C-alpha cells in the first residue's frame, strides 16, 4: 500500500462548532463518490480543481482575458468563463485582483495541512475539540489520510470523520485506528432513491455502516432532513427500521439548509435549485416517529459526547 503526499482540499474552516464536540477545525476534502441533488457543497463533487465565478465582485479590469491561455474568457465579457473551453488551470484566478474568479480546490502537503490543523490546538485542548474531516468524501483520499492522520495522532489531536459511506470498506478500514469518531450519513429509504438521487449504493452504504458499528470507533448516524424527499411517514419509518435492523439506537436529524442553491450560478454544474423549505417540517414529529421504532433522534444535531473540558 502506498500513501500519497498531498491532498486536494477546498477549504479549512477554523472555529467549527457544529461539526463535532468542542471547537474544531474542519478540513473539506475535494471529490465525492456520490452526487446528491441537494449537496450542500456542490463545489466539492469533482475530485480536481475547478473554477468558480463571482460575477458581482468583477471590477471589469479585463486582466483575466489577457492571461487565459485557452481563450475561455472572451475579451468583451471579462469575468465570464466558457465552460466548454476552460481547463481549470487557475491562471485567471491568480491574476484577478477582485476575487471574482476563484479556483476551488488546492493541493496541500501533509506538513502544511498539519500546521493549519494545529493552529487552534489551544482551543481544542480547552474545549475537547479537534479536527473534523469533511468534504466531499474524505475517504476518497484515504491514501493521503493513511499518511496524514498518524501525524495528528502524534500531536494528540482528536479526529472526527464525516462520511457518506459509499466506497469499498477497505478504504476506511485502514483509517479506523486513527479516528476518534465517525459521523455517518444515512439519507434515503430505498436503493432506487439512493441510486437516482445520490448515485450511491444503499446496500454498500448499509454494509459499511454495519461493519463500522461492530468496531471500536464510535459512530453517530445522521440523516439530513430533505423536505418532501425523505420526510413522508412511510419513508421515515423505513429508514428507522433499516437502521434498527443493524443495531442503531440513536441518530441525529440534520435540519435542511437551502444555502447551497446560491452557490450554483458560480459553478459549472448540472444541478438545479430544488426550492425546498423546511417551513412545514415538524422535526419533533419525525423524531417521535423514529422513537416509536426504537431510535432516539436528536435535533438540532448536537454531538452526543460534548464534554465540558474545563
Amino acid at each position, binding site marked *: 500500500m502506498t500513501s500519497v503526499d498531498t491532498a486536494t482540499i477546498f477549504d479549512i474552516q477554523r*472555529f467549527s462548532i457544529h461539526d463535532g464536540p468542542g471547537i474544531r477545525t474542519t478540513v473539506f476534502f475535494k471529490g465525492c463518490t456520490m452526487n446528491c441533488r441537494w449537496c450542500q457543497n456542490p463545489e466539492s463533487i469533482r475530485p480536481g480543481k475547478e473554477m468558480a465565478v463571482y460575477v458581482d465582485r468583477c471590477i471589469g479590469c479585463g486582466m483575466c482575458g489577457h492571461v487565459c491561455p485557452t481563450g475561455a474568457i472572451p475579451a468583451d465579457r471579462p469575468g465570464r468563463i466558457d465552460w466548454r473551453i476552460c481547463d481549470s488551470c487557475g491562471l485567471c484566478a491568480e491574476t484577478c485582483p477582485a476575487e471574482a474568479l476563484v479556483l476551488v480546490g488546492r493541493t496541500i502537503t501533509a506538513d502544511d495541512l498539519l500546521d493549519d490543523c494545529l493552529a487552534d490546538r*489551544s482551543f481544542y485542548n480547552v474545549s475537547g475539540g479537534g479536527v473534523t474531516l469533511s468534504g466531499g468524501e474524505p475517504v476518497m483520499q484515504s491514501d493521503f489520510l493513511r499518511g496524514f492522520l498518524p501525524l495528528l495522532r502524534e500531536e494528540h489531536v482528536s479526529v472526527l470523520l464525516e462520511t457518506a459511506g459509499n466506497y469499498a470498506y477497505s478504504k476506511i478500514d485502514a483509517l479506523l485506528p486513527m479516528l476518534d469518531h465517525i459521523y455517518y450519513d444515512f439519507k434515503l429509504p430505498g436503493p432506487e432513491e439512493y441510486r437516482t438521487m445520490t448515485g450511491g449504493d444503499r446496500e454498500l452504504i448499509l454494509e459499511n455502516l454495519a461493519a463500522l458499528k461492530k468496531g471500536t470507533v464510535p459512530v453517530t448516524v445522521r440523516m439530513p432532513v430533505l423536505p418532501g424527499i425523505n420526510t413522508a411517514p412511510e419513508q421515515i419509518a423505513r429508514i428507522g427500521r433499516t437502521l434498527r435492523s443493524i443495531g442503531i439506537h440513536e441518530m441525529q436529524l440534520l435540519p435542511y439548509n437551502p444555502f447551497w442553491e446560491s452557490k450554483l450560478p458560480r459553478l459549472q454544474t448540472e444541478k438545479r435549485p430544488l426550492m425546498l423549505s423546511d417551513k412545514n417540517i415538524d422535526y419533533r414529529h419525525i423524531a417521535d416517529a423514529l422513537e416509536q421504532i426504537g431510535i432516539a433522534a436528536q435535533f438540532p444535531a448536537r454531538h452526543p459526547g460534548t464534554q465540558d473540558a474545563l
Partner: protein
Amino acid sequence: MSVQPSPSLQAQENHRIRLDQLKAFPENQRLKKIRQDILDSGYHLCTQKASLMTDYMKRNDPQPKWLEPLRRVHYGLYGNSMKKAAKGMPQRTWQIAANNLLNRFYQRCQPFSPSENQLCFAKAFRHILDNMELKVYDQELIVGNPSSHRVGAPIHPELGGLLMLPEIDRLDTRPNNPIPIDAAQRRELKEEIFPFWFNRSVLAFAPLYTKNPELFSQTTEGCYFILTQFAGISHVTPDYPRVLRMGFNGIKEKIRHHLDRMPDTRGNRATEERRAFYEAALITAEAAIAYGKRWSRHLTEQAAAEKNPERGAELAALADMFRRIPAEPAATFYEAVQSLFITHVMVHGENFQHGVSFGRVDQYLYPYYIKDLETGILTTEKALEILGCFIAKAGELIPLFFDRATEFFSGLSSASGLTLGGCLPDGSDGVNELSYLFLHAYDQVRLRQPNFHVRVHRDTPAPFLTLCADVLKKGGGLPAFFNDEQVATALVNSGFQEDDAADYSIVGCVEWGVPGKSFPAAGAVFINLPMALHLALHNGKFGTKAFGPPTGTALDFQTMDDIIGGFTTQLRHMLAIAAEGNDAIEKAHARHRPTPFLSTLVEGCIERGIEVNNGGAIYGTVGCQGVGLADVADSLSAMDELVFRKKRLSLAEMLGAVDSNYEGREDIRQLIANKTSKYGINRVEADRWARIVSGIYTRAVFQHKSPRGGPYLGGFWSMTTHQGFGVRTPALPSGRKAGETLANGISSVNGRDRLGPTAAMASAAKIDSGLIGNGCALNMKINPDQIQGEEGSRLLRWLIRGYFDMGGCQVQFNIIDPAILIDAREHPEKYRDLVVRVSGYSAYFNDLTDAMKDELIDRTLHSSRSLCGC
C-alpha cells in the same frame, strides 16, 4: 491529603449554599428604582467644584491686582483665538509666542512658591469639601454625590477646562454628547471662572515647559498624536484599602509621624517643600474627616425629616455610620463599602473624573463580608443590595470633553475600573463569594460604569467564568478578561517588583497598574502609528508639510528592512515630540496643580514626603498607546508580498496608487485587499509584521522617562482615537482609503478577520507582549446567535481559555445583534439603556458619535458574516 478541620468544611458548605441562593435572588426593587432614576435623570454640566475653587482662590489670589487690566485684554484676545481655533483656524506662531510670553510674565509675578502653592490647593480642597452640596437620592444605601447633579460632568478650569470656552454657548446643542447647561452657569463660567483661570491653569502653563512653542498646536490637530493630560492625570487606583484599614485619623497620624521627624527646614528648599507637602496632606486628611462629620449631620437631618419610618431608619443608620467613617477604620462590610465610596467622591473633589479605579474590590472587602456573615449582621442578599447601590453610584460621573476630544474619546465614560478574581500572593486563586456577588449585583444594575475587569489564570474556577459569560451574554460588553501570567510578566519586564506585578489591577479601561502604588498616568498619550509609516514612505512629509526627518521616498527603499528602518526613525521622532509635550504638561501639574489629597492615598508619597504629581508614588510611569497597529501590519505585509516577494508591482507604482487614494486604481486596491496576507487570519506573513511593529513600538516608548521618575510604557488600546486619527490619516498601502477608521487596540482591521475568532485570537497572541506595560485590548464581536444557552457560555469560556493558553493578554467581547444597533441608530429614544463595548470601556450607544455608531454596526455585521459558518 490531610483532613480539613470541620469548621472549614462547614464554611465551604455554607459558601456553596450561599452561591446557590444567589442564583435564585429575585430582581431587587431598590436597585431597579435607582437604575431607572439614573437613566431618567439625564446629564448636566456641574460647575460646583469650579465655582468653589475659584471662589477660594480669588480670595487668596497670588497674582497682583495691578495685572488686572492686562489680564482682561489678554483674556478677550485669548477667547477669540480659541474660538477661531475651534473653527479650524489654528493659532498663528506669533499668537502662540505672545500668549506664552504673557503667561511667563504672569508666572514671574506670581509670588507663590511651590510650598505655598501646595498649601493653597490643600485649603481650596478643604473649602470645596466644606461647601459641596450634599444630596441623598431616593432609596440609595450608599451615599455621596460627586457632582451637584444626579449624573454630572464637572468642569475643571484649573486643569484643561478652558478648552470648553468656545463651546459654552452651544454645549447643550452641540451634535455630539450635548450636555445641558443653565444660564447662570454659562454666565459664571464666562464672567467669573474662565477669566480667572485662563492664565493660571495647567493648560496655560504647560507650554512654558517646552522649547517647542508649536508643540501643543500639533497636539490639538490630532494627526500624529494626542496628549490628554491637560485635562488632568487621574488614571489611578488609590489605596482605598488604606482608608478602610486605618481611617483618615490613622492617615493623619501617619503624616504627623513623618512631619514630626522632619529636620529643621529653614534655608533648605527641598526639605521645606517636603514639610509643606506634609502640612498640605494633613489639611486634606482633616478636611476628609470633617466631610464625614458634615454627612453625619446632614443625614441626621434627613432622617428626622423623612416621613417613611423604614427609610428614616436607613438614613439614621447611615448618619450613625458617618459619625465614625471615614475618620475611623471600617468596622463592617457596609461601612467599608460606604467609606470606600465617600473617599472616591472626595478624590473627585480634587481630581478630574477619568480612570480613577477601585482596584481588587473582592479581595479587600472580603474580610469585612465574611466576618459580618459569621456574626450574623449581614446576609448575602443584603450584601448584594449594598454592592448594587455602590455600583450604581459609579455611574453618576461623566467626563466633559470638548468637541474634538469627543471625536477621539466618544462615549462619555469616566472609566472607573473594578477588578475581580486573579491570583493571590501565594499563587492560589482569589475568586471568592464577593467576586460572584459583584457580578450578580452588576447584572441587576447594568449601567455603563464601572468597568468590570476579571483576572484569569489557570485555576480560575469554571463556575466563575461561566457566570462571567452569562453576564456578558446579555450584552453590555462587561466584564473584560485579563491573563494574569502575561500581564504580570509584562509588568515585571517594565520594571515592577514581582509581588507588585502579581497584585495588579485594572486602571480605567484596560491599563494594568499596581493598586495603591502606581501613579500610572495611563491615558496620557495616543500615537497614530500609520502616520509614522506614511512619514517614512514620504521622506518625513505629510502633504507639503515636513514633520519628521527625511527617510527617503519610494525609489530609495530596496528592501523591507529599509522601510522598517524609516518607520522606526519616524516613530522615534514622533514619540520624542509627544513625550516632550507630555513631560511639559506633567511639569505644569507638578508645579501648579498639586493634588495633596490624592497623595495621601498613593503609597510612597507620605513615606517620602513627595506629592504625587512630583513623583511621590512608588511607580511613576506614563502610558503611551499605539493606535492602528493592524493597519501598519497589513500595509507592511502588502508591500512585502506584492513589491518585494512576488514583484507584482513596483513600490513607486504601489505608492502612486496609495497617494491618489486609489482613484482609478481600484485594481491595485482589490489586489491588496484580496491577494495579500492580513493580520487577523493567523498567517505568519502578516502576523510577523504585527509582532515586529509592536516590539519596535514598545521598546521605543520604554526609552522615555517621565519627570516623575518612571518609564513611559507602551499600550495598544484606542478608546475611539482610531476614529479621530482615521479621519486625519491619508490612504495606506493596506488598501485602506483616506479618512477611513483605523483598527482598534490589537484587533484586526474591521472585517478582515474572515476566519473567525480563533484565527483572530491566534494572530493577536503573536503580538510582542513582553513590554506592553500599559495594557492592550482585543475586541471580539460575537453574534448573539452563536452563544445561546449553556453551550454558548461554555463556548465563550473556551475562547477565553484558549486565547490565554496561547499567550493572549486581554480580551473583551461585544455581543450584540446588528439589527438592534441599526434600530437604535434610527430610534435612540427606545434604547436609552443600550450599553455597548467601545474599546476599553462600555458606553451607552446613544452617547456615541454617528461615525462610531456606524463603525460598531459595521463591525458587528462583519462578525455575523464571518461566523455564519458558510
